[in-house]
């Protein structure tokens, strides 16, 4: 192959090309192949030259490449394609194939692009992977947002509950605290976080060592929930009782990851329990004396040893009657105390004319007043503002105060009752007596439950020690107050203040 003007060895030129060059005739027989074709085709020159493509590659006539070759051969139009070629041994390779019609044949130029294709594929794979990662990230973000929303809800719930909730790490170091815990303990979030739960510097340390040992044994070693009653102290030092439940939260390997501690302040419940048992003991103690009196008089009536003249029998019966009356009074007072202490005292607001109420109360007790020859002096103004209060409860207060003024008065003494008001905010009622008075040392004790001053006990007056306690508690429930001035053997004045509603 020589061209005029140039002395070129085309064989040598073609053999140095990286593109495969081949010339096939009309029967698709190999007329020429260069060295690159030998490399690409996995055949020697000898195996190709003089043979048809169909002989060298059985089945090639069914490939897309062959369709292009045939088209090029028949229409004499150049063709170009990228083609993945499968060799007889099953191996594959990618080629760019250029088909150039020549007289009575085709010049085929082929370039092995397997490596380029591989890189392209890797690139595509990488793209897909990147796309997947991006999609995953988006999903992840969505999930994280969902989780955040859930957490927000959880936090709202935890913040809203009245139970004290903390979450600690496996060593008890506090990681989370809810507002109720701050409220109950008095410590702030910042003071609590990072400290050890149950520490003395926080609310703990009041139980004995054995309690804390048992608690840790249960939650940390046995990995079980622990429930119990615990005494804690608030930041201000005040002690309180809580019912506590501590649960370990385990990770996938069964190790403690967190502890969740939920505590309920049961101080109030405890107080009610205490009030209940105090009430029982108070009731049994107070009822004993009239019961013993009734017992002994009735034994005297029934027994043989003691004289039983008719007069005597009547006297004993009279005493038994007094004893049972006293028990009725006592039981009523005790019921009032129990209502006050259990918070079940019903308050029913009505318009109350205090002068009418006071006159009724005085009338109820006129027998006792007359018996002791006591003179009552009332000082009620013509116009008295209407009180918005519970008339039965106010009656109770007035009855108690008047009964005291009579009972602890000297025979022939005086009682002065006066009403006044500033017409706007408050109404005042004063009960003055000329009785025994309250010893100075007892001034701060007279509103205490079951307290009776020594001087009136020695005078032999009966009393439950509950009256003034009831008065003060009932007044507090009605929004009123009471105070007094007293001097022993001169008398006492109680001042009540009622709020006036607008």
């Amino acid at each position, binding site marked *: 192959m020589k061209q005029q003007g140039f002395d070129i060895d085309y064989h040598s030129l073609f053999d140095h090309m990286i593109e495969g060059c081949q010339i096939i005739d009309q029967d698709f027989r190999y007329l020429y192949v260069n060295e690159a074709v030998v490399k690409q085709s996995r055949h020697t020159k000898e195996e190709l030259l003089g043979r048809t493509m169909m002989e060298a590659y059985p089945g090639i006539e069914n490939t897309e490449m062959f369709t292009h070759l045939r088209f090029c051969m028949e229409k004499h139009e150049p063709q170009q394609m990228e083609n993945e070629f499968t060799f007889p041994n099953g191996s594959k390779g990618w080629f760019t194939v250029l088909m150039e019609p020549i007289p009575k044949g085709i010049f085929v130029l082929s370039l092995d692009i397997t490596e380029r294709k591989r890189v392209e594929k890797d690139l595509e794979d990488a793209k897909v992977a990147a796309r997947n990662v991006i999609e995953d990230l988006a999903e992840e973000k969505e999930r994280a947002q969902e989780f955040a929303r859930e957490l927000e809800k959880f936090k709202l719930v935890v913040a809203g509950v009245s139970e004290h909730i903390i979450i600690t790490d496996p060593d008890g170091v506090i990681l989370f605290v809810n507002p109720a815990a701050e409220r109950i303990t008095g410590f702030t979030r910042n003071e609590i976080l990072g400290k050890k739960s149950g520490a003395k510097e926080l609310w703990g340390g009041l139980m004995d060592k054995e309690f804390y040992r048992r608690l840790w044994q249960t939650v940390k070693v046995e990995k079980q929930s622990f429930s119990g009653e615990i005494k804690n102290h608030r930041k201000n030092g005040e002690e309180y009782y809580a019912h506590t439940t501590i649960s370990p939260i385990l990770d996938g390997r069964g190790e403690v990851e967190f502890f969740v501690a939920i505590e309920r302040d049961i101080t109030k419940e405890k107080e009610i329990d205490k009030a209940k048992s105090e009430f029982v003991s108070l009731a049994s103690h107070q009822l004993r004396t009239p019961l013993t009196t009734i017992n*002994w*008089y009735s034994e*005297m009536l029934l027994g043989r040893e003691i004289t039983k003249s008719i007069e005597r029998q009547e006297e004993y019966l009279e005493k038994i009657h007094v004893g049972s009356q006293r028990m009725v009074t006592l039981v009523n007072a005790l019921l009032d105390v129990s209502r006050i202490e259990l918070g079940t005292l019903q308050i029913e607001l009505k318009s109350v004319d205090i002068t009418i109420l006071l006159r009724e109360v005085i009338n109820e007790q006129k027998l006792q007043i007359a018996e002791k020859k006591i003179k009552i002096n009332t000082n009620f103004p013509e116009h008295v503002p209407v009180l918005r209060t519970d008339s039965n409860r106010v009656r109770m207060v007035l009855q108690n105060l008047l009964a005291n003024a009579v009972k602890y008065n000297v025979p022939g003494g005086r009682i002065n009752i006066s009403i006044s008001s500033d017409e706007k905010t408050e109404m005042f009622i004063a009960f003055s007596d000329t009785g025994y008075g309250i010893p100075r040392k007892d001034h701060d004790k007279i509103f205490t439950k079951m307290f009776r001053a020594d001087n009136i006990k020695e005078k032999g007056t009966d009393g439950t020690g509950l009256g003034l306690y009831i008065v003060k508690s009932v007044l507090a429930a009605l929004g009123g107050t009471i105070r007094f001035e007293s001097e022993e053997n001169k008398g006492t004045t109680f001042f009540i203040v009622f709020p006036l509603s607008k």
Partner: protein
Amino acid sequence: MEKKILIVEDEQDLREVLKTALVEVGFSVIIAKGGEEVLPAIRRERPDLVILDIMLPGVDGMMVLKKIRERGLRVPVIILTNLSADEKIMGGVLRDEPSYYMVKSDSPIEDIIAKVKITLGI
């Protein structure tokens, strides 16, 4: 001569019923309403027996009994109380003591009278 009994009791009703019962069976009765009145009453009236309540305003019954014995007074004492018989409350005072211990609500009036009579050797 009729025997004289001192009742130490702060509850008026109980003082009255005890006095009535004891007078009915022939004793003479004097009264103390609180712990402080007891020693002067014993010195003044020389009672043959004391019925002593424990829960008293001011000086309580156990303190009164201790003082009676510290003064060398050998008058027999019947403790009549609402407290239940408890070694801790008694503090061992009664061990070598010519006294009885009775709980009010558990003791019929005739038992009390019987105990008074036994103590006085009647």
